[in-house]
């Protein structure tokens, strides 16, 4: 435990490094917005072509190229929009939210030249999704679609917004149109998610395999879908397959954090705490996201390193404040974190906010778990039913639904949910896996 503590300390020190550049960044953004405009240059005819440049290859070089083009011709709305997309892709690659603000600036610049620039409006919708402002995302994506009804680029953001707002039938219809007209990486991965939400994990796996196959040479996007495939395999209890997928994602990008975290979760699930903790410390040090700090804390707690775990949970709180300060709407997972490791009253408050702004099965699950932690079993059961209305087979959903049913005296429901969980994904979490098995034993 002592060793773990020592190793953990640098993580908190490093956090300072993340805090200070905020101000640096703000001044940079100001400089960026001062890039002067001139009106004499005509729009290059092929601007639309440059604007569709994006994924794969070297995004940094693409950013540089587009910055030069924008500086040479600031009124070219398509190039500014393309620059916004390149910044967004850099955010995905680095995990650095500063690129969100740079993207936002580029989209705003584009729209200042052409208020109907669809690529920029679609980009704004994507940014709104990243900030979990799903209602704004929906409005923006619909606006983009209204301007160019035959263009499919706004559809992915539209699908995401509809699904996150709990409008599943609408989302399915939009997604069906998208994949019928253009089956690509972006549509395959969304079909996979939709099937997953509806409990069809094998079907989700099939769709994600198509996404992985389509992603050859697409850099971060390839690693992204490969890691999602690993998560699905893990949910289905195929831990060997999951480990292989995570390693393939790491082959595409050696420091791809979601894959490192996935690998750690497989290790922690089977009780290999030491390598799991080491890996998660590496991940948290690189990028102290709440979800990674939670995974680290839970692995430490499962390994009996309680003080270290407390430290990690403390890091979650700091990160949350930091993100709120940066205008990012913290998500339902923090409500679940509060229910598991913090204040149940705070959990209920966060989850109610989430449910009000986006009544999805995800928010219902968080609210049910928060209410359960606060001791309101009958309200918890009501929202649990809402969370399970699509027949989810997500291990966390199943765990919550099973434990809530047990607490509320619904033995048959508890047996059913926990039975599926223990059979399908016994090692989904180092803390809750064993608890689910114990609960099931108690029930039988």
């Amino acid at each position, binding site marked *: 435990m002592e060793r773990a503590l020592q190793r953990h300390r640098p993580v908190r020190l490093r956090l300072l490094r993340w805090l200070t550049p905020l101000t640096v960044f703000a001044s940079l953004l100001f400089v960026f917005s001062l890039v002067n405009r001139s009106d004499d240059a005509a729009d290059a005819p092929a601007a639309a072509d440059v604007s569709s440049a994006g994924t794969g290859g070297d995004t940094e070089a693409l950013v*540089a190229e587009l910055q*030069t083009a924008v500086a040479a011709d600031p009124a070219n709305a398509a190039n500014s929009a393309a620059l916004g997309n390149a910044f967004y892709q850099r955010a995905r690659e680095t995990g*650095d939210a500063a690129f969100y603000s*740079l993207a936002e600036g580029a989209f705003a610049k584009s729209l200042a030249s052409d208020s109907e620039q669809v690529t920029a409006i679609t980009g704004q919708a994507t940014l709104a999704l990243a900030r979990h402002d799903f209602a704004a995302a929906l409005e923006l994506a619909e606006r983009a679609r209204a301007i*160019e009804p035959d263009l499919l680029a706004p559809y992915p953001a539209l699908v995401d917004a509809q699904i996150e707002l709990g409008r599943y039938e609408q989302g399915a219809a939009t997604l069906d149109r998208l994949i019928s007209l253009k*089956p690509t990486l972006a549509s395959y991965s969304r079909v996979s998610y939709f099937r997953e939400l509806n409990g069809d994990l094998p079907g989700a796996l099939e769709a994600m395999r*198509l996404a992985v196959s389509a992603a*050859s*040479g697409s850099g971060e996007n390839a690693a992204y879908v490969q890691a999602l495939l690993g998560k699905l395999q893990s949910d289905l209890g195929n831990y060997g397959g999951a480990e292989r997928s995570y390693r393939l994602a790491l082959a595409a990008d050696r420091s791809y954090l979601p894959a490192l975290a996935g690998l750690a979760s497989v290790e922690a699930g089977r009780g290999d705490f030491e390598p799991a903790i080491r890996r998660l410390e590496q991940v948290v040090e690189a990028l102290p996201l709440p979800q990674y700090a939670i995974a680290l804390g839970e692995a430490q707690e499962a390994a009996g390193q309680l003080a270290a775990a407390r430290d990690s949970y403390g890091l979650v709180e700091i990160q949350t404040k930091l*993100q709120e300060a940066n205008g990012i709407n913290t998500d339902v997972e923090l409500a679940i974190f509060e229910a598991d490791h913090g204040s149940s009253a705070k959990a209920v408050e966060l989850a109610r906010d989430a449910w009000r702004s986006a009544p999805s099965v995800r928010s219902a699950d968080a609210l049910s778990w928060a209410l359960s932690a606060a001791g309101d079993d009958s309200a918890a059961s009501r929202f649990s039913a809402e969370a399970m209305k699509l027949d989810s087979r997500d291990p966390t959903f199943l765990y919550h639904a099973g434990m809530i049913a047990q607490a509320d005296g619904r033995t048959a429901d508890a047996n059913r949910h926990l039975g599926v969980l223990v059979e399908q994904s016994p090692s989904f979490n180092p803390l809750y896996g064993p608890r689910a098995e114990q609960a099931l034993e108690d029930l039988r």
Partner: protein
Amino acid sequence: MRSRITPRRLAVVGSGLAAVAIAVPLGIGSSHREALNVMLDPTADNTDTYAFTADDAPGALTVVANWIPGETPNAGPTFFRFDDRARYYIRIDNNGDGKPDVSYRYEFKTKLNNPDSNLYAQPGTTGFDDPKLNVEQSYKLTRETTNKKGKTKEKTIGKNLPVAPPNIGPKTFPNYGNFVDDSIKTLGNGTKTFAGSRDDPFFIDLGATFDSLNIRAGTGNEGQGHDDISGTNISSTVLQIPESDVTNDGKSVSGPDSANAVVGVWATTERRKLEVTNADFDVQTGGKIGKKAKNGKKAKNNFVQVSRLGNPLVNELIIPLGSKDAFNRTTPDKDAKKYGAFVVTPELAAVLNALFNVNAPETDRTDIVQAVLQGLPGLNEHSGKFAGTAVDTLKLNLGVPPTATPSRFGVIGGDNAGYPNGRRLIDDVVDIDLQVVAGFLKGNEVPLGDGVDNNDKPFLSTFPYLAAPDDGFNANVGQVVQPAHPPVPPGGN
């Protein structure tokens, strides 16, 4: 649809800004997907299509179809490859109606000899038989024929054909040529095929062309352009088909005036559609529905066309953003109706006038429609009832023999064996398009160009004609600059 362009590595000014701005981590929820916003699909993206009669292969149609733009040679450890789940097509229309009559379908399959290794190959791998080669891609080639009623028959003409791997470097592949030699296959009826990595034969100064035609020297006719595609590779299919397999009467072409002489060529990519809700899914068991319980419901997972390419630069210069998706999924027979208007009043003509005051006619450009979509009468216009139909295919008169000393300007350079009569590897389509849009065919001859006149590497005189790919160890992207030369008059004449 050459949608992605390899960025040149310049501009220190801009990249500094991105490098400094390391700050707040993302607020991605683990459960909410930080979803992909790109609609790009490089593995399905057609970059260029070529159709010509090769010097060493009279009596055959030679087609080069390329995919996956911007392949940097050092993109290890996974590298670029064709998607095993997509279908890649070379299409041929032999009556001018814009619908495919004969199609060649490439379907790929990848085998990992050691599934636990991510390495492409171990050092000193000498060829396809070497067990040190880990990633092996192969393909099946199927010939489809479609009759007047739209009914398609198919026949597999090649199986387990090897794909030439990317050239990782001299230490891994000391004899890269072995892979190339073994990837050239002659099939039963004399059809030759190749698939795999080659040097991208396209050449263009992207910076100059797309920065409001910011031409570097003269009017782009004095060289000095930067070849941004130089040093990049491409995933290529090359096919050489006996004329009798592609003409409308099943016979060889006797001469340029023969009724079967003109064929239209383009390339497409298809992907499988998926049902959003899987019809095979059983919610009770969480698995597949048993065959008996299916109730006749069956998943409909058809293939959908997601990309096509006939004439170069049509997608870039002519089709507006809002129509690009529709353009990429339609067949050429719909082109006149859907996209004809964009050709008749090309935006580029107005831009050329604004920038250079060249008196390019801005409306009623039937000359461009004829050159690009209908075929030039007496040269590459289809004969018969569909003569003059406007379709985006590369129309090649197979009866026109190759020229001994070809002009990179093709037909406007007085060389009838080049673009827009088909398209050869050497044809300088950027300069040709600029001059044609400026009004060359209406007598307004302006010496416009991008300052890049030819590919960075010489083409081969024999199959597969494309130059060898750059290797990953010696990768050097976008560094070639065209030497300065005296001004070249319009059409090179």
